[in-house]
């Protein structure tokens, strides 16, 4: 019974004594110990794709990979959220580069060989994605997939709970606030380059990818006016 397992997961994370961690943090930690995976992340999605809001990750590499999917606008979380179906890629070495030309190479370079992304959805609305990263290649067994789906359901309940009890511990507002500069920078770039918002975000992401920095770091430079997007994208007006 999947519902019974979801209830059990929620019960465990809700009664966790460690009050420093947010509910999404605890969910990711519980998922990491329940499944044979190396890293777990939960990201919020909008109808347009990744929102850039990462609710929780188990480790720095998982954060980098979530960030990278946002920077590139491609990867399993984009695909899972777009289709509403789980994306299971057990062998990135063979299939990764074909499926996701840029993300595939980056995720392999980070030492990840399998990735599983499960959409978090309520009816037709997709609120986010649960991403599982694994060092070794190989498919999840049927039982493991069932367990992963139970964690995805539990993550959906957690997100809806946070939306319903806004601001109690900042578990939702905090990560959303932390992305504010990206959107501010996007707005500034539309004026600097005289382009639309989608194009501006693309340029921002491209600059991050090309310089090996995070989108947040580039955005902070733009907002503080240390960086200006001039007439051409190759120009880097860092001063």
């Amino acid at each position, binding site marked *: 019974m999947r519902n019974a397992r979801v209830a059990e997961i929620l019960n465990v994370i809700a009664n966790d004594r460690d009050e420093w961690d947010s509910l999404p943090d605890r969910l990711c930690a519980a998922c990491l110990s329940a499944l044979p995976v190396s890293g777990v992340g939960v990201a*919020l999605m*909008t*109808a347009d794709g990744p*929102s850039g*809001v990462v609710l929780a990750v188990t480790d720095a590499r998982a954060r980098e990979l979530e960030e990278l999917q946002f920077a590139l606008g491609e990867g399993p979380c984009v695909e899972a959220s777009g289709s509403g179906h789980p994306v299971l890629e057990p062998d990135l070495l063979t299939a990764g580069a074909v499926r996701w030309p840029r993300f595939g190479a980056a995720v392999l370079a980070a030492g990840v060989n399998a990735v599983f992304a499960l959409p978090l959805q*309520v*009816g037709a*609305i997709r*609120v986010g994605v649960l991403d599982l990263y694994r060092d070794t290649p190989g498919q999840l067994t049927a039982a493991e997939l069932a367990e992963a789906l139970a964690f995805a359901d539990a993550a959906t309940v957690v*997100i*809806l709970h946070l*939306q*319903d009890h806004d601001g109690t511990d900042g578990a939702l507002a905090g990560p*959303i606030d932390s992305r*504010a*500069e*990206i*959107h*501010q*920078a*996007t*707005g*500034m*770039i*539309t*004026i*600097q380059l005289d382009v639309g*918002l989608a194009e501006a975000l693309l340029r921002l992401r491209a600059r991050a990818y090309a310089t090996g920095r995070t989108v947040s770091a580039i955005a902070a430079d733009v*907002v503080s006016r240390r960086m200006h997007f001039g007439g051409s994208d190759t120009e880097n007006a860092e001063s």
Partner: protein
Amino acid sequence: MTNREQLLAATFVDLADTLVADFDVIEFLHTLATRSVELLDADAAGIMLADHHGGLHVMASSTEEARLLELYELQNDEGPCLDCFRSGRAVARDGLSAMRASWPVFTPELQKLGFHSAQALPMRLRNETIGALNLFRDRPGLMSEADLRIGQAMADVATVGLIQERAISASELLAAQLQTALNSRVRLEQAKGVLAERAGLPMDQAFQLMRDYARNNGRRLSEVATHIIDGLLDDRTLRKRAKPRPGAPPPGA
């Protein structure tokens, strides 16, 4: 199987069927009301559900006769439905004199419509009572134990269906709110960026200008943000009209 058993089995299948795609609450409750009269020793059946304030409303009836509908509504003041909803237990009285003693206004109205018995079964899941199934009969006296058990089983199945439907609606509402909150937050930050760059302002001053303009012109912040992004509001207009107009309450008031 006897005819009754077949009909009972078919009723449970019907009720379960409505739980899947295209759930229609009213249709679902009408099935329950109609089948209650067909299956049980009852001449009329009605379903009352409670709103958020505990007020009871007729949701379905085996017959749509206006005076019968009024009789259900009357039970917001007194009657088996109200007692049943409040206690979460089945409510019945053995005989008309006992009914009149409990419900002095309701009972004569019931008799005027030709009924001589009224009972109510709770629609309850664990501690939550969401309404009651009302059963009226032409003859006085209590319903058989067997009928009550079947009636309660149907009410129970219907309750599970209704509660599940409500939970799904509530989750969808929260999910939609989250999407809206995310999207409007993104647009607000983008608008701050657009305005800051266009007017050469620091980010916090750009936001202050937007907020003052919205407040002093009775506009919503999200609407102002959209207009800035779409280029419909330039910073000169914003600055000019961000100051309080004569007679308008000062910002922060």
